[in-house]
């Protein structure tokens, strides 16, 4: 028996006009996103694009020496695999599942074909690309100008916005890898947030206890990305109408 399919759990797919979605639906393959799975590797060609319906995929910039830092997160609001339709070929980033979930995937040849039709899907994907650019830009700025504690708050809030609960399954080492900092720094910053009752951290699980306080502590970068994302959703509605 197959699980019930509902591509509309992904916001981009949900924003497509009914006829476009009906054409795409039979081509979409439901796949699990398993924690830690590498969806594509830096420098590699991608075989599919992914539209998550739950979970989080982290896009990491990979340095030549192997060090990496997160440049964006993608959940059910977006998609992974922009280079396929933007004609970028290989990508300098790696996409890793940061929080397990599910996705629909579409074959590389199909997405290229659909994008080339130039209809609602193309408009949606281009707008999403701009939102992703904003997120990457803000990450670059945040890396440069804000202290680790603010970055951690940003990261927690962006993750939280993409999860159904207030709990993240995540080790401090993984957060350190995402933020491109040493683990000790994360431990220290998380310890302060915990001592003040904003989060609780135990055995690889982080629970956000006081979201409002976390939003007070975070740098403006979170708000910029959030607003862009909200604006995008509003414009999706306009495209679908």
């Amino acid at each position, binding site marked *: 028996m197959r699980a019930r399919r509902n591509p509309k759990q992904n916001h981009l797919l949900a924003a497509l006009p009914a006829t476009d979605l009906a054409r795409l639906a039979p081509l979409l393959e439901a796949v699990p996103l398993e924690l830690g799975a590498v969806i594509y590797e830096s420098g590699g060609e991608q075989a599919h694009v992914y539209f998550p319906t739950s979970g989080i995929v982290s*896009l990491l*910039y*990979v*340095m*030549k*020496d192997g*060090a*990496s*830092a997160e*440049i964006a997160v993608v959940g059910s609001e977006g998609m992974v695999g*922009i*280079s396929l*339709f*933007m*004609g*970028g070929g290989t*990508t*300098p*980033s790696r996409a890793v599942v940061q929080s397990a979930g599910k996705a629909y995937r579409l074959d590389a040849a199909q997405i290229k074909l659909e994008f080339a039709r*130039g209809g609602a899907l193309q*408009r949606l994907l*281009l*707008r999403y*690309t*701009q939102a*992703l*650019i*904003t997120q*990457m*830009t*803000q*990450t*670059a*700025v945040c*890396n*440069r*100008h804000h202290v680790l504690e603010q970055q951690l708050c940003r990261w927690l809030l962006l993750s939280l916005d993409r999860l159904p609960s207030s709990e993240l399954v995540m080790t401090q080492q993984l957060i350190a890898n995402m933020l*491109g*900092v040493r683990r000790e720094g994360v431990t220290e910053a998380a310890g302060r947030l915990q001592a003040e009752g904003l989060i609780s951290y135990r055995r690889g699980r982080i629970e956000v206890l006081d979201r409002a306080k976390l939003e007070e502590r975070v740098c*403006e970068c979170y708000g910029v990305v959030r607003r*862009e994302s909200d604006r995008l959703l509003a414009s999706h509605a306009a495209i679908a109408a």
Partner: protein
Amino acid sequence: MAAIPNSLLAALPRKDYQRLLSGMIPVDLGFGDVLYEPGKPIRDVYFPSESLVSLLTLVEGHLALEVGLVGRDGMVGVPLALGIDASPVRALVQGGGPALRMDAARFRRELRRSPSLQRALHRYVYALMAQISQTAGCNRFHVVQSRLARWLLMTRDRVRSGEFRMTHQFLSHMLGVRRVGVTEAASALQRRKLIEYSRGNISILDHRGLEAAACTCYQRFKP
């Protein structure tokens, strides 16, 4: 016909290029001119030829960091190609010189008519995204001196000249570090005889040496 000085335009079929050209006005961009402010509508797009434009983000109203550098390789105004009317960044001319300008309404019409322009711009947007991610990574891992070396080389590649005007204040915004950090890094490169820096003029003396001093990010995005 003269060589087309902007490589994005040069990649278009002749017919598309000719039609675009008829809608463009040659302009001279002045050092320090602001083409876009964040959140404001984009009125014109620019295809630089000998000029160079920095895309800068602001934090709390202050210049914070350069996230993109557009020269003869690209176009200023990519949000329009993505269906967005406002610029998320400040676009600041950091190398004065000629560019071709087209008003936004005409650009949108031309874009609809020309699939080859669409494809060229999509590829360019993707390259710009790679540049942004690299900036994010580079900022995280590399020291100011290597980043300054990378930035000077990226500038040189786009203006095709080893000499340009640049203040420490300007560089500090580009690299997102304090002025004193830029001064130290520039002095170190000067002591190593890789560059010469005097009264706001920078000359690259030894570009191979500078490449060796730059972080590996430069090699990956070399044109």
